[in-house]
């Protein structure tokens, strides 16, 4: 039996979890900062870092207590090393280094995206995985399409060229005056709207497996806001969507539904096509946007392959997925030294742990 403590602080959730054998969740604690960031309509890095530094002790202690283990009974300490916000990552990393030094247990610096992949191994009841599988990671910070050939073997097929899918949800949510984070609120509004009201563009409808969502956001803005006069346009700055005035004759529900349809169409189309091209046995969807019901439903309709997604509480950032990924890395022999540095732009592919 291998018991691993996972710690995650790459963005706006302070999280800790104890996972046994990479499959059984002993505890899973997440302190969300949503309320702190709501007033900015997005994650404010310095606010996030401060909140992590404040919350980390209580979150980890609660995870240890709820799992009914002591720090000295752990087999390894795993922590998110990147990608993510530097200031946020450093809090979890240094806390983990302190725990690893005091317990004299191995420390593993884990890739956050790989964590999302392994959230799929935490679904109950456990089902064996027959590789290769196609993995679509869609969250506020990432949109990645990967072919996973085995544990730890990833071929990156494509990803977003600009905004992440979840980022598009947040930005359009702000345009529509919906609360942060945009995803769940757009989904709720969209349920009462017509997906065909607006024909928003499906960008990068080409043979590549890359995505682009910033044009879609602009198209929504053009459709739903009062067009600024030439004079005001001159002084316009980046992020102006926050201050754009919403047209009064527009149905927010219809915009939400149509926008959601555009995002999910392109995600589903490319994922299904890639799965077929590479002979995948299953399609895995992970990350915050994988909670979206329209995405799940369309994916099931578009492909005859089984589609897996994590339970809702494991779609968004959590530490159970970090501990689960660490279990497989632990078995592969990964041990990260106490001097390890943060990797804010760390890609997930076959070279991810090359230098470790």
């Amino acid at each position, binding site marked *: 039996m291998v018991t691993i403590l996972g710690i995650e602080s790459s963005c706006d959730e302070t999280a800790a979890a104890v996972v046994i054998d990479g499959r059984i969740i002993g505890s899973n604690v997440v302190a969300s900062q949503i309320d702190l960031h709501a007033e900015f309509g997005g994650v404010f890095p310095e606010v996030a870092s401060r909140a992590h530094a404040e919350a980390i002790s209580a979150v980890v202690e609660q995870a240890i207590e709820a799992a009914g283990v002591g720090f000295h009974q752990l087999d390894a300490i795993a922590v998110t090393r990147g990608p993510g916000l530097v*200031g946020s990552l450093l809090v979890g990393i240094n806390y983990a280094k302190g725990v690893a030094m005091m317990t004299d247990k191995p420390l593993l610096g884990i890739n956050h995206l790989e964590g999302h992949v392994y959230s799929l191994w935490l679904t109950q009841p456990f089902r064996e995985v027959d590789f290769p599988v196609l993995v679509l990671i869609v969250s506020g910070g990432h949109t990645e399409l990967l072919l996973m050939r085995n544990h730890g073997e990833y071929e990156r097929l494509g990803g977003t060229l600009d905004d992440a899918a979840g980022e598009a949800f947040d930005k359009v949510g702000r345009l529509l005056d919906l609360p942060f984070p945009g995803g769940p609120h757009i989904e709720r509004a969209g349920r009462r709207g017509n997906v065909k009201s607006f024909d928003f563009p499906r960008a990068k409808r080409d043979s590549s497996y890359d995505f682009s969502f910033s044009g879609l956001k602009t198209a929504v803005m053009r459709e739903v806001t009062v067009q600024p006069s030439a004079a005001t346009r001159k002084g316009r700055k980046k992020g102006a969507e926050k201050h754009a005035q919403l047209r009064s004759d527009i149905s927010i529900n219809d915009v939400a539904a149509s926008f959601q349809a555009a995002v999910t169409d392109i995600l589903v189309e490319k994922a299904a096509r890639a799965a077929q091209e590479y002979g995948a046995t299953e399609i895995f969807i992970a990350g915050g946007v994988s909670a979206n019901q329209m995405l799940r439903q369309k994916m099931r309709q578009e492909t005859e392959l089984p589609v897996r997604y994590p339970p809702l509480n494991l779609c968004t950032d959590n530490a159970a997925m970090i501990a689960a990924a660490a279990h497989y890395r632990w078995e592969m022999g990964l041990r990260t030294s106490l001097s390890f540095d943060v990797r804010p732009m760390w890609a997930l592919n076959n070279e991810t742990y090359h230098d470790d």
Partner: protein
Amino acid sequence: MLLAIDTATRSLSLALHNGNTLIAEQTWRTGNQHNVLLAPSVQHMMAVCDVTTHALTAVAVSNGPGSYTGLRIGVAFAKGIAAVNKLPLIGVSTLDMLAAGQPFKNTRYKLLAILQAGRGRIIAAQYRVKKGRWDALTNPEITTWDDLLQNIEGSYYITGEVDDNGRNAIESAKLEAASLTLVDPANRARRAGFLAQEAWRRYHAGDEEDFSPAKLVPVYMNKPS
């Protein structure tokens, strides 16, 4: 045995103190390498001094003001260390730590403790001798050398992070008859031995202060920006 950690600015300082004796102390300028150097340096210092992790009974950390990232590296690492064996974590103001290291040859002198705050600004607090040690007279404030030196009266020792701007400002102020004495470089360095000493004093002061790690929050001086 108390482990003391200071990563508040560009220098890194560590110490081991057993209540009676300073067992080890190291202080050096690291630039922005705290995250890489801190954990292995602590481990190495404990190893060469033959101090086991089980021998640690308390942890002290400078909890600001200072560089936001630097502070969080030290505070997060200290919290992780304290969590494992449920050790008390004692946070000490970075400026109090600095003041604790200063001699007072002349008790009529007050003390100015200085940190760099970037973009030509400094963080300063005043201290005076009270009951045989430096006691804070003002809260830390963000200011500039010129503003600081124009608004003080009397005789001062000046310690901490004094750059060329500071040296020039002090020289000009001296010409205007202010009584300013720049402390020697070794005393100006922020040394964790004094952090350890100050932490011991507070921990044993008998106040009902809560030293659980979850209670410790760095002092930032500014709202997030």
